[in-house]
């Protein structure tokens, strides 16, 4: 492994990390802020990917896909939220139902099982052409176009969320997640807040789907499979390095960093060839597990130290 390969790999992980970060943020919004796991994520991600690719296939401009894909995601989130709050179905089941329904809807939207569009219609194409024209190595230009687009979209998403979750309305969403009964008792419409939370998280996931589909140059009905665990791993890695008592802005930034670290780990495994790619899913699960039990480990270590000091 040469230094150049290693560097290229890091650029690659950075780009993928930034493009997948919105998924981790979407999971954060539902799992951590609303304290409700949302399985719609996989369906929504594929839905966003399929919408974007179908639009590009039929000649739409890439900027319009960045608007329509989140709307599609939001609609899926709304469906889950309505099933959950109005029909009183368990959150996990509602998510599964919507994911299953989206499978058929995706096939209907595409009109076939896979779809792609010309490369120069993708959001990355103009930036990549610009970078290549300025004399950058062509593979690096490709990877940097992912990084630049990913960073811009992420900044917009994080800024919007920071703004939303610091308004009175946003605070009431956080209150609903923290203590639903208390929130209800002070007159917050908790069902409404849950619906909004799911709409926002799924809209962001739909957006990520649209971007990743363009990075992968195509979409199919299985585009969303495995995304949930990738997002979860990125989220927990990010949380473990987040300083205590951090603001929501810092938390979101660290989640994006977690996503980068996750993809770097996978890249390192693939580049050194120490493990067959078959094992990368197990590795992902172990990384997530390690990050999840880190607070307990930390507690145990600190307690021991405290005893020693005594």
């Amino acid at each position, binding site marked *: 492994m040469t230094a150049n390969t290693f560097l290229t790999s890091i650029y690659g992980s950075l780009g993928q990390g930034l493009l997948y970060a919105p998924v981790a943020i979407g999971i954060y919004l539902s799992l951590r802020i609303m304290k409700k796991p949302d399985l719609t994520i996989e369906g929504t991600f594929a839905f966003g990917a399929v919408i974007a690719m179908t639009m590009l296939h039929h000649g739409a401009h890439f900027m319009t896909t960045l608007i329509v894909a989140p709307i599609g995601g939001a609609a899926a989130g709304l469906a889950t939220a309505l099933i959950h709050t109005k029909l009183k179905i368990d959150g996990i089941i509602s998510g599964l139902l919507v994911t299953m329904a989206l499978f058929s809807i995706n096939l209907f939207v595409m009109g076939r099982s896979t779809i792609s569009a010309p490369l120069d219609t993708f959001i990355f194409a103009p930036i990549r052409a610009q970078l290549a024209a300025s004399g950058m190595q*062509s593979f690096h230009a490709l*990877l940097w176009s992912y990084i630049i687009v990913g960073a811009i979209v992420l900044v917009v998403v994080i800024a919007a969320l920071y703004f939303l979750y610091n308004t009175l309305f946003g605070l009431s969403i956080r209150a609903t997640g923290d203590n639903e009964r208390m929130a209800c008792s002070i007159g917050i419409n908790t069902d409404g807040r849950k619906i909004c939370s799911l709409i926002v998280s799924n809209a962001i996931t739909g957006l990520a789907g649209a971007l990743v589909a363009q990075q992968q140059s195509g979409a199919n009905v299985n585009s969303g499979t495995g995304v949930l665990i990738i997002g979860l791993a990125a989220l927990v890695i990010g949380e473990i390095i987040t300083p205590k008592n951090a603001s929501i802005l810092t938390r979101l930034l660290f989640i994006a960093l977690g996503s980068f670290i996750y993809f770097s780990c996978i890249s390192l495994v693939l580049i050194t060839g120490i493990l067959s790619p078959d094992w990368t899913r197990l590795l992902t699960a172990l990384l997530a597990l390690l990050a999840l039990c880190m607070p307990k480990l930390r507690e145990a270590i600190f307690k021991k130290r405290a005893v020693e000091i005594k």
Partner: protein
Amino acid sequence: MKKLKTLLAVALIITVGVAGLAGCAQDDTYDSTDDTYDSAQNDTPDSAAGTYDFTVGILSGAHIPAFELGRPGFEDRLTGLMEAEGLRVQFIYQNAGGDPAMSTTIANTFASRHVDLIFSMGTGASQQALPVATNAGIPLVYGIITDPVGAGLVTDVSTGSSSALPMETQIELLEELTGGTLNAENRVAFLYTTDEDNSVASLGRLQGVAPADTIVPFGIPANGLDHLQQLFINIAADPTIRAIYIPQDNQITGNMQMVQNLNRSQNPERRLPVVVADLPIVAEGAIASLSVDFSANGAAAADIAFDILVNGTWPQTFYSPTAASLSLYINATEAEAIGFVLPSAMADRANRTF
């Protein structure tokens, strides 16, 4: 609560009842299908198909280009052969869309519609159709399957055409493209999905005929497209790799544009010729393919089906493609895009140039 229990009980009784009745009904049709198979030429069992001499159910395993080519190949040949004998055949086409449960359901539908023969495309779909065909006594003819013996598909009621490539031809093609024999300095990256049976089998067969350690496997897991970018970084970093070979691997051939994008984006000296095992995929960003013409593969299955239905003879063995039956497709546009010069001999003898 009590109401709910009653409701559940009623629902359960209805379900069991309906299932039981359906079971009986199916048993009946199986018997009659047996009868009609013996006297197939005298009358057709399906009243809706009164004017046809034969009804053939076509089960496609998934929406993939290979199957979409195999189907007209089969239908056209069989219709032609039948017409020459003054017979008429009708086709019922169903696609399982990659869902194993759906394959079984479709096969059952065929049995209950008294088809005279089932033509199935794809290993999974054929395996799922086999028990139904066996129980109903309907002959099963399959097409576009890499390894019928390994998949347990050579039985008393099933036979068909295999699409297994003679691997020596693939090595010859790769050597012609890279301009020299495969050795430690001239190696090939084998890009595949590690848990797709067809791909793993192809890897073993290709490595079996190639010089040792010249076929380097680069695998991604199922739904592992996020790994593909890193693999291309690795391929670019190994200067002994001079070409990329992609087997009949649905995940990768279904995302050829990503492969094309990553390959075209490499630095000029590391843009490699991509060889695929599926002819239709050449147009989507590969350089060349020397492979089975799926339409001809479907036609070969139609010959077998005709023998079974009309002549009443069962073939000695399933059909296997030979080196002479393969077609060569090349993509001059892609070659130009990556700055690769195709050998002129290859351009001259190509069956199709994109």
